[in-house]
Every structure is written in structure tokens, then in C-alpha cells.
């Protein structure tokens, strides 16, 4: 057995565990923004590790895998930011445990003016 196959499969396994935990976070978290936190971070790193592991297993695929990783790392935060902004504009509330909401204060100040 070659070392790179073992290393790659272990990386893939850890990445898939992160993906699973991210999905669990999406399922368990109490409100939209916290779900988004779990859904963005864990899935991004999980995908990166999974893809990298497979790229190490098949070294001739490495170039394509790296381009795919770059694309995902660039686009995933943008889509999640767009979604968070839309949700906050629509007035979807934060969970009751939240301590502060500066953006809402700012918007209400503008409305008073």
C-alpha cells in the first residue's frame, strides 16, 4: 500500500466527518443565523478536506481539484452573505438568547430621521 492513498483516505474521512457535523449543526441550531454559521464554515472546510484527500489519492487529478477548491472557497461565503443580508432585511428575528443587534438599531435610527 502506498502512503499517499492512506493519507488521502484519512483526510477524506475527516472531511466527511466535518461535513456531517455541519449538517448536524444546520439541523440543530436554534435560529437562522446560527444555522448559517454551521452551514457555511463546516461545509466549506469539509468539502476542502474531502476534495484534497481525493486529490492526494489520485495525484493526476490534483490540478482540477485545486481549481474546484478555490471556486468553492470564493463563492460559498458570498452566497451565504447574500442570504444573511436578505434574511435580516426581511426581518427574520434572531433567537431569544441574543445579546445585541446593532444593525437593527441603526435601521430604526434611520427610520426616525
Amino acid at each position, binding site marked *: *500500500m502506498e502512503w499517499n492513498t492512506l493519507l488521502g483516505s484519512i483526510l477524506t474521512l475527516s472531511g466527511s466527518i466535518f461535513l456531517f457535523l455541519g449538517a448536524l449543526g444546520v439541523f440543530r441550531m436554534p435560529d437562522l443565523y446560527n444555522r448559517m454559521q454551521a452551514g457555511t464554515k463546516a461545509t466549506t472546510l469539509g*468539502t476542502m478536506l474531502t476534495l484534497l484527500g481525493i486529490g492526494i489519492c489520485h495525484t493526476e487529478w490534483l490540478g482540477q*481539484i485545486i481549481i474546484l477548491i478555490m471556486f468553492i472557497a470564493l463563492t460559498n461565503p458570498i452566497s451565504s452573505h447574500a442570504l444573511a443580508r436578505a434574511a435580516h432585511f426581511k426581518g427574520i428575528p434572531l433567537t431569544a438568547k441574543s445579546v445585541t443587534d446593532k444593525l437593527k438599531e441603526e435601521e430604526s435610527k434611520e427610520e426616525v430621521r
Partner: protein
Amino acid sequence: MDKLPQIILQISTYFVSAGIILTALRLIKGPTMADRVVALDAFTVISISLIVLIACIAGRVIFLDVGVVYAILSFIGVVAVARHIEGGL
């Protein structure tokens, strides 16, 4: 001992599938439509991993092209729904 990487890859495929099922559950359950879109976002990113795992199991490099198209279109789809929610479509 030679089969260990194969077994590990199969186990990770099961983990990824379980993750997809969890996000799909949130998508079915989600009280508002924004929750459903969050589930969609996580779902698409996880399924890119599944696509690459399928490519690895099948041993065909050409399946990665499908993964990139999937990534592009899922990004645009999520942005589209977000813009629709905030009324800027």
C-alpha cells in the same frame, strides 16, 4: 490490509450521505423559507463532495466537470433565491 483505503472511502461516503439527509430534513421541516434556503446552501456544498467521491469510486476524471457545473449553478441559485427574498430580483 490493502483494502483499507477503499473501506475508509466507503465509510466517508456514508457520512456524506447522512449529512445530505440531515440537511434535507431541515429543508422539509424548516419553518420559514429562509431556513429552507440555508438548508439548500449546505445541501449543495455537501453534494459536491458526494459527486467527487462518486468520481473517485467510479475512477473517471471526467465526472469532475459535472462537479464544477453543479457548484456554479448552485451558487447562482442560492443568490437568486436570496435576492428574491429581499425583493431585488
